[in-house]
């Protein structure tokens, strides 16, 4: 079910909604721009705020192939762009030595496309029947500066050069989504070529919408309490790692799995590890603090009704 590119911001918003992604209009604007002006989208934000999901939803809704390049320190051309198939090349050379082929022919043969192993970046430049693929460059902050510099070249011209083969250029540029957790600042030169968007934690209404979509099994009352409790934790701001949307969803799943119908201090204490991932944070919230926050949440929800 390949779909056409959105023709307006509202269209982009509808596309995301169909992909079960609850987005702000601001995010939809950035996505729409990136799709219509064919420039990469640079998403930055804390872990668990749905950056990677954007690419997945886009690929699914547009019916394009999703090519994912997970970045890590020391990522190099051999694992990001291409690699020659050395064992096969060696065999080919040995076979050629027994035959009468000239050296030039051998060279041409072993450095041809059939000996080329294509890695994500090269795959993304290839034409695809469904249209140009969605290229997800995940957690770019984990690589080092040299790779960033290399990427700069790829993303500005959508081409890579392989010395033995020549330059390979994409007929149509892929849809590029770059994500970063900001464990390091990405150089301005790269950001300049992209549309930038900082994905923030959602407000209560949007988080509740997300929860309804992603954890439909959770009772309505519980969902409201979960969202209000998480919002309280984020507002206090004295935690080392604030819970993301992914944690909220996990927590709602965990609680409904345990047949909890409404939050109680015990239920919170038992499942806090799903929400908070640092022992210091858990120790800070567990017990009396959780009870206090829960009482506040309940009072506020009662007042709102």
């Amino acid at each position, binding site marked *: 079910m390949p779909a056409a590119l959105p*023709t*307006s*911001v509202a269209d982009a918003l509808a596309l995301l909604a169909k992909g079960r992604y609850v987005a702000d*209009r*601001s995010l939809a*604007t*950035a996505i*729409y*721009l*990136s799709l*219509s*002006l064919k*420039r990469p989208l640079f998403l*930055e934000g804390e872990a668990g705020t749905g950056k990677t999901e954007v690419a997945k939803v886009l690929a699914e809704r547009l019916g394009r192939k999703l090519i994912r390049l997970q970045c*890590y*320190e*020391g*990522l*190099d051309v*051999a694992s990001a762009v291409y690699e*020659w198939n*050395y064992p096969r*090349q*060696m065999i080919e*050379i040995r076979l050629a030595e027994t035959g009468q082929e000239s*050296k030039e022919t*051998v*060279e041409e043969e*072993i450095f041809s496309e059939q000996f080329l192993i294509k890695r994500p970046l090269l795959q993304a430049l290839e034409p695809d029947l469904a249209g140009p693929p969605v290229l997800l460059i995940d957690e770019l*902050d*984990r690589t*080092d*500066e*040299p790779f960033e510099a290399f990427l700069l070249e790829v993303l500005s011209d959508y081409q890579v050069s392989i010395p033995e083969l020549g330059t390979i250029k994409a007929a149509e540029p892929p849809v590029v989504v770059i994500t970063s*957790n*900001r*464990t*390091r*600042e990405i150089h*301005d030169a790269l*950001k*300049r070529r992209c*549309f*930038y*968007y*900082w994905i923030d934690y959602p407000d209560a209404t949007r988080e509740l919408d997300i929860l309804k979509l992603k954890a439909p099994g959770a009772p309505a009352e519980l969902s409201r309490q979960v969202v209000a409790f998480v919002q309280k934790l984020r507002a206090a701001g004295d935690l*080392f790692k604030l819970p993301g949307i992914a944690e909220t969803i996990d927590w709602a799943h965990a609680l409904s799995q345990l047949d909890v119908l409404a939050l109680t201090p015990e239920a919170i204490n038992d499942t806090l590890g799903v929400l908070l991932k640092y022992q*210091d944070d858990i120790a800070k919230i567990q017990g009396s603090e959780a009870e206090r926050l829960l009482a506040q949440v309940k009072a506020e929800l009662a007042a709102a009704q």
Partner: protein
Amino acid sequence: MDGVAPASAGGNLVANIMHFARVLRAAGLPDGPGKVLQAVEAVRAVGLESRADFYWALHAVLVNRRDQRLIFDQAFHVFWRNPKLLERMMALLLPELQVPGQEGAEMSRRLAEALRTGQGEAERPREEKVELDAAMTFSGRELLQMTDFEKMSNAEMDAAREAVKRLALALAERPTRRFAADPRGARIDMRATLRAQLRASGLIALKRKDRATRPPPLVVLCDISGSMSRYTRIFLHFLHAVINDRDRVHAFLFGTRLTNITRQLRTRDVDEALDKVATAVEDWSGGTRIGQCLAEFNRRWSRRVLGQGAVVLFISDGLDRDAGAGLAQEIERLHKSCSRLIWLNPLLRYEGFAPKSLGMKAILPHVDEFRPVHNLESLAAVVAALAENGPRRLSAAAAWPEMRKAG
């Protein structure tokens, strides 16, 4: 596309977007002419029906970092209500913005020195202010004051460059996950081998490679409270030299609050850099709240600067106004987030000094290396203190029987 503005209005809009980008540029955002073209393109694409879409289209192009959002937001709301107003405001500000500290009233000491050379004048006696009384106390007040560093002399600059060159810093190079050609490497470089093979024939000569190494990132946290004030100048010179010598170095100063001075220190000229630092920091020679400052570092910065196996150099005398409250957890968190925590303590000028303060007791169990220094009058002494093989954590504590008894 239906959203495109009519051509006549478009001309006006383009000019306005250009002015808007110039306003942002004056406010410090890196928005050059290329950005203006992109912004116009983006606005054409989303159309002009909705103010929100217009806002976010410009935002997607003109904002590059999270901390620029606030400036953009304010500028947007002022500018697009009445462009003239903001421009007039900027025009009023600009003369001041363009010439920061170039009045020429104060001649750089190096320049003055260069003019004097050949006259055989001996080095003037150091005029550094040393207040012995203040130095050993830690004030409870938060002193917000400016400071003025004596300019660096040419001889000092040379000495600094020399010293930093010798800086081993216990920062042994780390293997990375990248490979580099190495004739005695452990792995075979198939790519190089095959390419060489095409040129020669006969036996295949194996080319080798091995892991490339590079120094780890360095993060320096330096105490600038009253009790440390006599060393501040030396440490800033040290930081300036290190930051300009290698990449991946971040420097923070703390007293009662935490300030990131990495950008200021990147300035090539040391005096100019120190001037910038002096303006950026607001709590010179005040009290110390180590716990609170570390908490802020841990929350706001640690995930952004401590990646990739960073080494943390913690320079402080451990005298803490809050008497070590909350310090233990924060230094523990810091220790767990970095690959190596080195504590450089300049308080040990006096023989027989023992770490009795609560702050020091809280810090000591969580450092990997402890380097007490008795004499920190020069940069060379700092480098020497860092280069020598300091005692490891356990033996550092063992050197102080009193402390172990007490703790």
